[in-house]
């Protein structure tokens, strides 16, 4: 469902020289600031003749500097997407994944961070048919009553969870809001095990259901993303369960992207 326009990849479309050239650039690093032709050939598993062609091409293009025997990278390498992407923020990074997730599910998708005892929406992609919810970037909802919020709560240890619930001033936001601590603890335990959270009309009167999953950076949950839908008459809450796989895939892909972000 995500094939790019005009077809799929096959061996004849793959440009080997591009892959190898990038591999040569990436062979340089903290421990390999300067390399000889043999070093580069060894690091990339290319023949000396091939490595030489790529190094000379990169030198011609200004990405590599040669001092006779050794080669090093030049700052021009930063023009290869780096300058453009280095100021990428968490919302920027989340957006393409949410767009994809909305394309797959046909539902609205969001990303949020935890701010105190609230989830704070930092990115959102609306499904076209939904016009009624008031949720937008900047919206805050209490963590204890939302799927994304419970994802954050489930990342806390038991003591910190108690502290968070103490500070939360839990109240009955809708007839379905769970405010019993033991029930919330049990739910949190379940989320820890299964890796996702499902909440059915607990936070907003308009009746929103959401399924949410965690996004990690350096081993910590830094964001949550969700798929949400208005609860339509006669629709079982389990219907969101079928979005579980694409949701988890998107959360993992965003986690992977965040590994590369520059602080």
């Amino acid at each position, binding site marked *: 469902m995500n094939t790019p326009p005009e077809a799929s990849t096959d061996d004849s479309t793959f*440009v080997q020289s591009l892959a190898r050239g990038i591999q040569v650039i990436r062979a340089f690093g903290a421990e390999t600031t300067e390399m000889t032709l043999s070093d580069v050939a060894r690091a990339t598993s290319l023949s000396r003749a091939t490595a030489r062609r790529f190094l000379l091409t990169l030198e011609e293009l200004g990405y590599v500097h040669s001092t006779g025997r050794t080669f090093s990278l030049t700052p021009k390498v930063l023009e290869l*997407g780096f300058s453009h992407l280095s100021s990428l923020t968490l919302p920027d990074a989340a957006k393409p994944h949410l767009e994809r997730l909305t394309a797959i599910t046909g539902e609205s998708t969001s990303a949020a961070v935890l701010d105190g005892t609230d989830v704070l929406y930092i990115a959102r992609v609306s499904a076209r048919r939904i016009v009624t919810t008031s949720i937008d970037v900047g919206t805050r909802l209490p963590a204890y009553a939302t799927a994304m919020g419970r994802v954050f709560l489930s990342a806390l240890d038991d003591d910190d969870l108690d502290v968070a619930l103490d500070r939360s001033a839990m109240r009955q936001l809708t007839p379905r809001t769970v405010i019993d601590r033991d029930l919330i603890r049990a739910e949190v335990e379940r989320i820890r095990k299964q890796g996702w959270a499902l909440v059915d009309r607990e936070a907003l009167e308009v009746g929103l259901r959401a399924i949410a999953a965690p996004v990690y950076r350096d081993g910590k949950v830094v964001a949550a993303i969700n798929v949400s839908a208005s609860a339509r008459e006669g629709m079982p809450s389990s219907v969101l369960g079928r979005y579980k796989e694409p949701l988890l895939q998107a959360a993992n892909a965003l986690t992977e992207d965040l590994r590369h972000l520059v602080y």
Partner: protein
Amino acid sequence: MAPTDDSSSAQSTPPAYVKSLARGLDVIKAFDSENPQMSLADVARATDMTRASSRRFLLTLEELGYVRAIGREFVLTPKVLEIGNSFISTLPFFGRVRHHLAELSVQVSESTSAAILDSSDIVIVSRVPHQRLVSVSLALGTRYPAWMTATGRVLMATLDPEALEATLANTSFDRRTEHTVTDLEELRTLIRQAGEQGWSLSDGEIDQSLMTVAAPISDGDRVVAAINVAAPAHRESSEEFVARVLDPLLATAEHISSELDTGSATS
């Protein structure tokens, strides 16, 4: 300007030249802040290639994880940052500068950055934004003409006289603001001063609303970069700015330099 096929090679290029590498890298370069998301047709237009060629490069980059398709359009993925990081991590001060810049930023409550000299430009290689300056987006890899920045003057002061004159001879002195110093004699004086006093100030020369003060960092043998503090120009005079941030800046530069010196001596 008919787009040529990927297999054709231009007469002027050497036989070893790998044309499809050059073109593939051009596809990456075509994405920028103005064009973060492009269709196949957009990419073909921006790189002066056929749609068929640009499609092959985009699909290859997608396969490698550097490009992602969203509907009918393409974006670069953050994995692309690894390519630039290969360069950043070859810098001798890689991994040591940023936390010092962060401390300095907290200490003076301003944004800080580090830059290197690349012929007649400076290139930002590390930066710590201060919240007050959220509007100033200073992307890593951003280039400025060295001669009109405090950082550039500090770095140009380390060039030998011939290299300095060669760099200045290669430069067009285009004014950015009414404060930009474009007189060659005055620039030589500013650069000499930067070398003698070990720091430099630029007040509203790149941007009316910005002041910068910079100092060099050295690995014991040579100056490898310069660090700077930038502040909005409207809040205080340049004298007040220098009085406020110069000592912390110089102390940080000295601290980094001594770490680099020790680091290179023990390695």
